[in-house]
């Protein structure tokens, strides 16, 4: 764009031919483009980086490990293969693993034993343990400890070597031990086989068939959450936990699943009511002349500026009392802790018919020439019929924007559902549910579950965004075209 200007000024002053000039300017243009692209990529890393990095970290056993590298055992193909193989041996399921009668899981673990340390055979136990202290930890489950048999530990290999510890060279040897965990006799299928391998003080854990979940007791214990995890059970351990571990105490159903379902229903309900009523209201404001029109329009604008904190107090009471007692007609006393309460009420502008969507529709209908509409009118029908048959179908682009924006708003809605939904857990929507995750597991430092839940909950919105990008961007600019 600067070419013309640059060229002129150069030609006025220099001895170079116009071809040389052109090339000089062209070089600058290419370089500038290169720099802009580089800045763009850097900014993209800044904006997408945190999401991507947390997605990768959510695979780790402990996402809080320091330094927070990307050297994640869950990303090693060797561990994938081992996990799938162990899963097949343990539960006949290479994807999700497990522990079934007849299972035989051979396992090897290697230690480095410094010269001055005498190594005894490590002790292998299957502890009575369940993951997580949080939601649903009270469910009765079968423990692998009650059914598993551990074979005597044998020394398999021994090789002299030397490694450096804190910069010092230490001589010693690598010793590999092997053992087998089996499930003799009959019994129920079990989800997981936790194993703890305790070695002598002073030896150093090097490697094992499957990388240890964590090292405890100042290096003495190599602990495995599940010896037969299967591919998904190992790589997406935290994701499987999100669904399996957090369960409703009363029904035993997966909480995360219920939350997703609730969020979905809430979003759909809001989309339908907004599509039906917000469009009608927008049309009326755009097309009809009547007294009070300006007043209503000002109210629409005003309602978007008043914080939800003003209206939620009364709205909470209205919902609590079942909308002035109306819901008692259906035998319901209060709409608190019910999805209906979230859908019908709303902080700020009501969730059911949002003022901002009315506004978008009004802007859109005003942009369509009245003649287009009139030409298509069918005589002898009511205004409402004509609206549904003719006008509504014409509004497709704006309807797309309304749908997408409503979906996003509902899926991410936090404040109002927080007010209405307190208990039980399985009535919550995803954002409120994630807050429970944060409260329950955050205190225990169990970030794996929290991050996985957060990432999972963001996936639907992200997919919808990429599929319907056009409507998203249109929606934002519709909102932006207000003067």
């Amino acid at each position, binding site marked *: 764009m600067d070419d013309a200007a640059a060229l002129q000024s150069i030609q006025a002053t220099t001895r170079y031919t116009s071809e040389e000039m052109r090339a000089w300017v062209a070089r600058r243009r290419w370089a500038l483009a290169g720099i802009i692209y580089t800045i763009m990529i850097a900014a993209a890393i800044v904006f997408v980086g945190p999401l991507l990095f947390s997605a990768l970290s959510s695979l780790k056993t402990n996402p809080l490990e320091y330094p927070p590298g990307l050297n994640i055992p869950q990303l090693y193909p060797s561990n994938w293969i081992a996990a799938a193989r162990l899963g097949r041996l343990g539960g006949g399921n290479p994807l999700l693993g497990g522990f079934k009668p007849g299972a035989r899981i051979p396992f090897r673990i290697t230690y480095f034993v410094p010269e001055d340390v005498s190594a005894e055979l490590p002790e292998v136990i299957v502890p009575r*343990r369940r993951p997580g202290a949080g939601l649903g930890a*009270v469910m009765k489950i079968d423990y692998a400890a009650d059914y598993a048999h551990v074979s005597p530990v044998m020394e398999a290999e021994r090789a002299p070597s030397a490694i450096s510890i804190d910069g010092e060279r230490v001589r010693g040897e690598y010793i590999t031990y092997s053992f087998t965990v089996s499930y003799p006799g009959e019994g129920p299928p079990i989800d997981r086989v936790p194993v703890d391998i305790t070695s002598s003080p002073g030896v150093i854990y090097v490697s094992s068939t499957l990388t240890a979940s964590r090292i405890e007791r100042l290096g003495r214990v190599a602990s495995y959450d599940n010896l037969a995890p299967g591919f998904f059970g190992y790589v997406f351990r935290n994701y499987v936990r999100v669904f399996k571990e957090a369960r409703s105490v009363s029904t035993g159903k997966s909480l995360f699943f219920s939350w997703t379902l609730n969020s979905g229903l809430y979003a759909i309900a809001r989309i339908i009511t907004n599509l039906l009523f917000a469009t009608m209201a927008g049309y009326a404001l755009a097309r009809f002349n009547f007294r009070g029109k300006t007043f209503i329009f000002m109210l629409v604008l005003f309602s978007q500026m008043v914080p939800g904190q003003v209206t939620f107090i009364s709205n909470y009471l209205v919902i609590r*009392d079942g909308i002035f007692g109306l819901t008692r007609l259906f035998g319901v006393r209060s709409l608190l802790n019910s999805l209906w309460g979230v859908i019908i009420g709303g902080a700020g502008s009501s969730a059911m018919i949002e003022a901002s969507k009315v506004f978008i529709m009004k802007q859109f209908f005003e942009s369509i020439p009245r003649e287009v509409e009139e030409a298509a009118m069918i005589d002898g029908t009511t205004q409402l019929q004509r609206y549904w048959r003719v006008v509504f179908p014409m509004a497709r682009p704006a309807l797309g924007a309304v749908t997408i924006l409503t979906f996003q708003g509902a899926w991410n809605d936090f404040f109002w559902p927080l007010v209405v939904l307190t208990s039980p857990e399985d009535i919550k929507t995803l954002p409120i549910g994630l807050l429970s995750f944060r409260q329950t597991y955050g205190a225990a430092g169990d970030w794996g579950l929290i991050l996985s839940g957060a990432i999972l909950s963001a996936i639907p919105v992200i997919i919808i965004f990429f599929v319907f990008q056009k409507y998203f961007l249109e929606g934002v600019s519709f909102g932006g075209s207000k003067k």
Partner: protein
Amino acid sequence: MKKLVKMLTAVLLVTLIALPLFAGGKQEKQTAPASVETASKKEVQIRIMGYGGQDPAVVVRLLDEVIGEGLEKEGIKLSYEPLEGDYNAALFNALSAGTAADIFYIPVETAPGIIATGKVLPLNGLVDTSPFIDSLVEAYTFNGKIYGIAKDFNTLALHYNKDLFDKAGVAYPDENDNWDTLREKIGKLAGIGDNIYGISLPADYARFGAFAFAAGWKPFDEKGNTNLLDPKFKTAVEYYTGMVREGIAVQPSDLGQGWTGGAFATEQVGIAVEGAWILGFLRNEAPNIQYGTTFMPVGPSGERGNFLYTVAYGINTDSPNREAAVKVLEALTSEEAQQFVLEQGLAIPSRKALVDNPFLKKGTPEAEANRVVFEGSRMGFVYGYQFGKVGTDWFRPINSALATIMTGEKDIDTALKQAQSEIEALIERAK
């Protein structure tokens, strides 16, 4: 489509018309007709609201295996409704919406607030409170009225990591330790490695208070006022925050943990000051940790200090089946029920008679911890974890003073002076 629109419009119009009719009815009309009907059929449904988390499993088993059968013969059916997440918030919601159960938990720290709603039935003359530990009954007595029967309780104890003490070559803490000897022992622990600390102490009244009591300080005087400028209080602050300043102690948040139990599970701290609730957590989160439990150290007053954490069952004034509810409450706190809960290793009973229970003397680390926690209720200065009318806001100035002293932002005197003026304002407002 058209019909649907018309119908919905009609429904909404009805709503609008009905609006003025019902607008006055802010206050809930009580007595749900449904439950009156069932009462007349002699089959009574008693609902119990309590914590989520571990409690549903405990209570449901208690109902099924111990008390359910007897009550069913009398025509009483029981159901447990866990209020998950923030229990207090959920309970207030239910009370204000009129959907609260016949019997509900009353946590000791929020008891004054819950009782102030006027929805808790005084139990004087309805339930015999003499078999229960006196301090527990007192915690629920306001103006001579008893509002709840403690279901179980907890106190604080020192849980120590044996591996760390062994590695440092220091004797385990024991019941003979006082503030100074304890500090000496754990001071050596901090020397054995980077990021190893003697004890984990949060900037939180819920733990610090026990030390202040051991110094002889009382949270409230007769007039209901609080004095943070008391020299005894200052001694405790010096001891408690001093260990953090010197690097002997660490705040759990500095280890990325939300509480000292979490810090203990990282195996980076020698001691955690917690109640028996840490046992279940360790069972899950750090099953291989080698720990022991002993009493709180003796303070400068020559006595130990401790908190009483407890939860009681209370009865809803609006319950349509009061008599049945009282029966259920008695069954829930019966000796039989408490024995069961104790033996499951779930909670510590509130009845005096269970003090000598053989279960507490089994010698396993968990039984030992339970015994220490149980006996803690009778040793030295023990006060309920309660803050009068002010509620949980009361300890905010204290926590905030502790935090600023621990990080070195303010010196002790300045911080305490500020806390004192804030706490006075809070008490003034509540009166």
